[in-house]
């Protein structure tokens, strides 16, 4: 469906799912905060200079000379080390990965795009060989030995073989640094995903009394989790016929305006189902800050501590006066 030229095109993004699904290298890079500045800092720590870049170009010439031989060496090492498999089902693909990764180390411009590419390749390797990095380190070690041999064998061809090997060592540390971060982040993501599944199974809404529910929120709250909690609260209101709910955020580390807006939405949704909500665990200072940040707390009853909030809830439930769910908040 391509529109004719004069029409305006407007793109609006609503909420984003937490896993963006954009190019894996890029989102990892953003998560690891790899910018031009942080990359330069890492290089400075390793004393990685333009001289090293030039020497690595020389190494690249050496390595490319007998590239196939080197790849076969690496491949043989992996096959020997991995006793569990019957045999590699896709040797060409595996060798291709190894060539791209290890031979690519000396072909880079060592800028941010290079890092992205390395992260992408590490992802490919991880997919192929699994989440345990020890095979990776073993193969890297072999690569260094093989390159060292070729540098020694090159003899007079190089001005300063020791300095050349130094450069290889530096770029190795640079590369390993990124790979380690990537492995750690992937592990964290797996753990997070497992915790997510656990969270979905548990029911966080507690019944304190007839018609009174408590929803304690603990830990980090992102959009997905906030929506989940809201859903669970609303279903509980219907099932237990609650007229008052207490939402306790004492255990939420940082209540920022995003979290606060989720809470406001939850309170409004509860109201639509005839239940009044009291939010506890927001200190007066935090509440004031949120209001200053533009969060509209006018329709939200807040009480500093949980105990006080429960007492207020009981008062609302048993009062003879105006009903808790009247929209103007009387009572």
């Amino acid at each position, binding site marked *: 469906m391509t*529109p004719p030229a004069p029409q305006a095109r*407007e793109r609006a993004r*609503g909420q984003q799912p937490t896993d963006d699904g954009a190019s894996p290298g890029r989102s990892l890079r953003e998560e690891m905060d790899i910018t031009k500045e942080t990359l330069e800092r890492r290089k400075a720590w390793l004393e990685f200079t333009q001289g090293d870049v030039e020497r690595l170009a020389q190494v690249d010439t050496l390595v490319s000379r007998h590239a196939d031989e080197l790849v076969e060496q690496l491949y043989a090492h992996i096959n020997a080390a991995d006793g569990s498999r019957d045999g590699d089902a896709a040797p060409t693909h595996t060798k291709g990965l190894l060539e791209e990764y290890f031979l690519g180390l000396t072909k880079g411009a060592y800028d941010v795009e290079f890092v992205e590419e390395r992260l992408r390749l590490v992802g490919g390797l991880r997919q192929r060989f699994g989440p345990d990095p020890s095979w990776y380190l073993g193969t890297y070690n072999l690569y260094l030995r093989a390159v060292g041999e070729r540098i020694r064998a090159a003899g007079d061809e190089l001005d300063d073989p020791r300095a050349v090997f130094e450069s290889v060592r530096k770029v190795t540390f640079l590369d390993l640094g990124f790979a380690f971060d990537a492995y750690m982040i992937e592990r964290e993501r797996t753990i997070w995903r497992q915790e997510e599944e656990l969270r979905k199974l548990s029911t966080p809404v507690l019944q304190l009394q007839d018609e009174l529910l408590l929803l304690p929120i603990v830990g980090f709250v992102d959009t997905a989790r906030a929506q989940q909690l809201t859903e669970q609260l609303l279903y509980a209101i219907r099932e237990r016929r609650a007229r008052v709910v207490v939402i306790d955020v004492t255990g939420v580390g940082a209540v920022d305006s995003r979290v606060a807006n989720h809470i406001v939405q939850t309170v409004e949704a509860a109201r639509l189902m005839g239940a009044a909500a009291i939010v506890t665990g927001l200190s007066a200072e935090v509440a004031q800050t949120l209001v200053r940040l533009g969060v509209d707390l006018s329709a939200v009853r807040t009480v500093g501590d949980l105990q006080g909030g429960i007492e207020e809830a009981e008062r609302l439930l048993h009062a003879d006066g105006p009903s808790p769910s009247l929209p103007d908040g009387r009572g």
Partner: protein
Amino acid sequence: MDTSEPLAVASDTDVVTARQRARDLARVLGFSTTDQTTIATAASEIARNIVTYAGHGQLWVRALDEGGRQGLVVVARDEGPGIPDVERALADGYSTSGSLGVGLSGSKRLMDDLDIESGAGAGTTVTMRKWLR
């Protein structure tokens, strides 16, 4: 269910059909009941916009499969008067005054993304997507 054929939208009965079709596909694709309602609400909104502002138009509801992610897309198209200032229409606030912006900005909040192609006198195409979590 053949979701490749568009639904003709010209009356409020068609609006009901549109949201039922959106809900049904959402259910089949595995969206939660909450998301089914969200999707149906957004579909209802843009279908109704067709009737209100253009008199008649078409609506598609299709499954999506992109880069490993699954989801649903709703496309509403009409040859009506169009929206001269799309940005302003989307920026409209939380009012129930019945203006076009309410439905569009609200639908944008309900779905994961919303695209509008329109211009004065040039018809309107609204595309909105929601992804399975």
